[in-house]
């Protein structure tokens, strides 16, 4: 999967993004929503890192903070040798072309009063000095690349379907030849049959232009399809980070295990016999995360240490990072080698067999 010298394109170190909670007429700060709480990872050039988790876990905030669409509370984001998190506005503007974003809602992220050519051409206006003809040629080139008919260049977004609108958004992101694109749930708003079209397009473009993606999604099966490595977030923290196959074949963190087990499969026979781990309760509020491990309130394998100490994200096998006390303590025992099914004895939570 990696060539001889994997080059880190993006390096995130201890990223924190807190949003203040204010109260009273003086807007006094009374607390923080810890949307992203001490997240570190890196993205290798040319790879797709999947970032998965449930709504509210901070995955979108993380993606936005990396591109400095938010000012991070703490931490560093290194992209191509520059710390984006602390860059001055003028430097940031110079760096913007290399890092772009594809948004979730293709309806809301396109200006309804601009034509497709204007939308795709806007980054060119901002960052290049192309003549009108050059710009139009570039817009056509981009429309070809994402599979939009050139004849529609002067139409408005409302004339397009959801899938086509997402193509417009992708063309706009590509306009300045970026190296790194954050795809924030790019297919969540699309129909099943259209999702595959957009995902295939993203993969083609990656091969063609050598792009690096941070692919944020809650759709685990799609992430399994597109990502090389996967980071799982829960309540603002990364709980597991591993190569794709390793993660899906043998999830280590109890949350990853439950998350994967919750995804229904389009096969009635396996669905009838499959063992599911049903988590109890809801995700706690990020303004008041539990003491100790963030997952300790719902974890089927919880023990007393989990209520006291937050586990750090540690590498337990080459390339596999887990933040869980189970692996910190018994790193050398057979536990790490056991398949998830074989751990029944340690399951204290509800487990259903149907």
């Amino acid at each position, binding site marked *: 999967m990696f060539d001889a010298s994997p080059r880190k394109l993006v390096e995130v170190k201890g990223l924190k993004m807190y949003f203040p909670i204010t109260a009273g007429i003086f807007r006094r700060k009374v607390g923080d929503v810890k949307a992203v709480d001490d997240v570190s990872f890196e993205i290798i050039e040319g790879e797709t890192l999947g970032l998965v988790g*449930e709504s509210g876990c901070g995955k979108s905030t993380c993606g936005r903070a990396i591109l400095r669409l938010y000012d991070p509370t703490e931490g560093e984001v290194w992209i191509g040798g520059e710390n984006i998190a602390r860059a001055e506005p003028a430097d940031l503007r110079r760096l913007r072309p290399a890092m772009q974003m594809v948004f979730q809602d293709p309806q809301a992220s396109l200006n309804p009063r601009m034509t497709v050519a204007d939308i795709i051409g806007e980054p060119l206006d901002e960052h290049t000095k192309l003549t009108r003809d050059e710009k139009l040629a570039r817009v056509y080139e981009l429309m070809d690349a994402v599979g939009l008919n050139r004849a529609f260049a002067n139409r408005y977004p409302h004339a397009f379907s959801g899938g086509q609108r997402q193509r417009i958004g992708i063309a706009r992101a590509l306009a300045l030849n970026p190296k790194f694109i954050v795809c924030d749930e790019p297919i969540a708003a699309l129909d*099943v049959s259209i999702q595959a079209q957009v995902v295939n397009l993203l993969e083609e473009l990656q091969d063609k232009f050598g792009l690096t993606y941070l692919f944020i999604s809650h759709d685990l099966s799609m992430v399994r399809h597109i990502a090389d490595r996967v980071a799982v977030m829960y309540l603002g923290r990364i709980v597991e980070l591993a190569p794709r*196959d390793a993660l899906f074949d043998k999830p280590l963190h109890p949350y990853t295990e439950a998350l994967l*087990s*919750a995804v*229904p499969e*389009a096969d009635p026979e*396996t669905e009838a016999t499959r063992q599911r781990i049903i988590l109890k309760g809801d995700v706690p509020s990020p303004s008041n995360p539990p003491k100790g491990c963030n997952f300790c309130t719902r974890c089927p394998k919880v023990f007393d240490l989990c209520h006291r100490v937050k586990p750090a994200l540690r590498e337990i096998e080459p390339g596999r990072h887990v933040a869980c006390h189970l692996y910190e303590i018994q790193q050398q025992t057979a536990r790490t080698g056991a398949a998830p099914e074989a751990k029944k004895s340690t399951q204290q939570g509800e487990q259903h067999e149907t």
Partner: protein
Amino acid sequence: MPDGAEPVLDVKGLRTVFRTRGGEIHAVNDVSFDLKPGELLGVVGESGSGKSVTMMSLLGLLPSPPADIRGGEVLFGGADLLKCAPDHLQSVRGAGIGFIFQDPMTSLNPVFTVGYQIMEPLRRHMGMDKAQARNRAQELLELVGIPDAARRLKDYPHQFSGGMRQRVMIAIALACDPKVLIADEPTTALDVTIQAQILELVRELRQKLGMAIVWITHDLGVIAGIADRVLVMYGGQIVEQGPVGAVFRDPQHPYTRALLTTVPAIRGERTAKLNVIEGQPPIMKAEPAACAFRDRCTVAFDRCGQENPRRITVSPGHDVACFWNPKTGGARHV
């Protein structure tokens, strides 16, 4: 479910049209299906395929205009719901047929307590007094797994999480012991781990209460996990219908076959490239005179553009509306 049992709900030839400024949209075209007692019928299709409109037409939930039900029969409890008096329909809604909507956020009234909203159908349809209704409401909240039910009755919808709100919606739908429960994408707005909780709850409730359920979704995985039978809708029509095992093991319609391969698997073999259904779902501007899927179909031939295929039975209980035969790879002789 017993075979050959009298259906609790029988829909025949339903047609719904929307009159818009841009002309008519034929959202539901000659849809017929039945629902056996205790059965869980899954309905799949993309947005715009007519699955929600079909169910809303049954209960007269669509505003008219623009909606216009052009034909068909909906037999429930010996009456045709499309022709009965508004009073009767009102008593069927809620009491006979419960409805769970997709978005638990917008379908609960934010200014009334959850308790009030559960008690409302009880008092209206079951003639309960306040105390009886409150007791029953508490029972219902306990039934759907909301802890501390007595206190939670006094809470407002915003005090519940998404999954808990959907549980409240289920409690309201179940309040008057309906024979049929229609659930319109009830887990689409929820996270997977919460979806798993709700699906588990529905499995339990079915065993306890034994009502028939229509479950609308676009997620084939959900259908595979809970349904007995599945309807596949496309362009406002049922293109395939059959027992869930048969449809997933041996899909007959090219659309069903394609749909099953566009979704990447979460377990087992990983596909290198996703299968794509090219093109867009159709906008039905007229009654279909030809197969609605033909433009996106990889196996379409001349006949598909000339007439609209009728549903034919391929094996007991499994039928398909298509001229192509996946066994032979050629035309079906019908």
